[in-house]
């Protein structure tokens, strides 16, 4: 984890080369890609999916998976929007939304560890449940009229030292999570539980607690993403976040983290999320028709993963 031999480093940086290659191709096809405004664009677009993918990295490192992130986003976004529109203080609202995200994630973790249910099926069930609750809560309608809270609007639309606030939020989240994963005992435990749960338990690690924590973190990050999204759109959609889990998982895997757990790093996830973001933005800039966009996206993901496999093989 904390140390890499140079060979390993090169293999870890594979996704970065993939990203650079993609950027070069897109820039040649449409030079306006490289304008500052568009780079901010891409980063702003990526921030939401990257924050979700950061959480997913923790979960996948323990050998789990979380399909419920999109529904968690929708539910916490709807709750935040309704609180705001009822006139609650934006900071209090944000705090409550984050805590609810944490609780929804914790529920996932408890079902998985205490109920001994496979993460895929547990979060498939909660994905449906949280989405249903969102629809019940919003009565299937978007919640707008969030009131005129400058501080909340800043969160999705503002700039800080010249950088878009969502991008700053993403970078701060990245730094904090990178530090947790690489430099703290908790991070070490996450890798250990994913690497060999049995051995981790026999070394005095409370594996259940570690797992519950990673799902809780993922729920928290999904609700952070919900706040950014709600602020950007000035409204919460009951259908928000659908199939976000797939993009997040793709970003994690593109970044070189193994779906078996125990191996990977969060920097790769950032790169993976950027690859997907640049791809979406680039295809729009180049004007690839939307039907073909899906084909191209699938093929690029495949190529990226295949290149990574070849290198390590």
């Amino acid at each position, binding site marked *: 984890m904390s140390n890499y031999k140079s060979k390993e480093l090169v293999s870890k940086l594979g996704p970065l080369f993939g990203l650079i290659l993609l950027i070069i191709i897109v820039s040649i*096809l*449409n030079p*306006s*890609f490289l*304008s500052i*405004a*568009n780079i901010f*664009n891409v980063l*702003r*677009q990526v921030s*939401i999916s990257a924050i979700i993918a950061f959480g997913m990295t923790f979960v996948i490192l323990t050998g789990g998976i979380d399909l419920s992130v999109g529904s968690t986003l929708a539910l916490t976004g709807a709750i935040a929007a309704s609180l705001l529109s009822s006139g609650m203080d934006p900071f209090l609202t944000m705090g409550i939304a984050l805590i609810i995200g944490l609780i929804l994630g914790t529920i996932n973790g408890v079902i998985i560890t205490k109920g001994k249910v496979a993460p895929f099926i547990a979060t498939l069930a909660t994905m449906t449940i949280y989405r249903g609750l*969102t*629809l019940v809560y*919003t009565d*299937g*309608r*978007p*919640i*707008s009229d969030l009131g005129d809270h400058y501080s909340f609007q800043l969160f*999705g*639309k503002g700039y800080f030292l010249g950088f878009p606030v969502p991008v700053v939020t993403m970078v701060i989240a990245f730094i904090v999570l990178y530090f947790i994963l690489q430099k703290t005992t908790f991070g070490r435990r996450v890798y250990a539980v994913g690497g060999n749960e049995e051995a981790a338990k026999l070394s005095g690690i409370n594996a259940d607690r570690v797992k519950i924590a990673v799902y809780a973190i993922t729920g928290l990050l999904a609700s952070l993403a919900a706040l950014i*999204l709600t602020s*950007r*759109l*000035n*409204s919460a*959609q*009951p*259908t*928000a976040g*659908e199939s976000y889990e797939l993009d997040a998982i793709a970003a994690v895997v593109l970044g070189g983290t193994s779906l078996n757990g125990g191996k990977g790093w969060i920097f790769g996830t950032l790169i993976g999320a950027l690859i997907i973001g640049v791809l*979406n*933005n680039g295809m*729009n*800039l*180049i*004007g*690839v*028709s*939307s*039907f*073909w*966009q899906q084909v*191209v996206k699938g093929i690029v993901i495949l190529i990226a993963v295949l290149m990574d496999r070849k290198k390590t093989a």
Partner: protein
Amino acid sequence: SMESPFLENAKEDTAGGNASFKIGFSISTLNNPFFVTLSEGAKANAQEKGAEISIVDAQDDASKQASDVEDLIQQGVDMILINPVDSSAVGSAVESANAAGIPVITVDRSTEGGEVVSHIASDNVAGGVLAGEYLLELAGEGAKVAMLEGTAGSSAARDRGEGFLKAVDGKVDLVSSLTANFDRGEGLTVMENMLQANPEIQAVFAQNDEMALGALEAIEASGKDITVIGFDATDDAVAKVEEGKMAATVAQKPEEIGKAAIETAVAYLNGETVEEFVPVDLELVK
């Protein structure tokens, strides 16, 4: 310049001398024949007018739409047409376009924020009312009626349902209202189940034609005679109406909407004044 099978922006040769405008069109979804037709109406008209059009698909995701509009701004288009995924969520995207000095026209759904040059639409709520009134006419007061709802939480499902209920509320007996996710297969199975629970159903309103056609299969298999009204007037549905199997379908004339959108856009870019609201007539195909 690049020629590739999947580039739809290939510039038309406009030897006519008309300055070639570049128009961006952010569409809510292309996973639905209605919007596919709408986008094609726009595309065909743009070609005729010698304008270049770039279409991006939000896949029914409001946040993807915000990103798509930003990408269009980056492309440096002269005009942005937006078919909002959701009226309340599209405001910030319209505002970004305003900030970049690019005029915006909303199509089919309106925006609750930002400045638009014009709004071109036929109203979903009005369409629902139209369907409801006709259903009332055919089935009569007090009839047992079922509704097939679209994808829970989507604006089309909301508005069409709202209009329909407005027209029939208190006048018919709505025995069942369940979602079939705008999907023909689910329309079939949900209708089967509805008929099981309420064999006495006399009329069905489906919030789109796909579900209506699915329901029709279930009804035909059951041998019952039930009035079916759909929405969208897709080719399949119109054919069924002509065969007399479906009672009616609400035509929003997507092709017309797309065409009107481009006409308005080009007129505006040519410096002409345009109407703030360009209504495209709804029509009941029966």
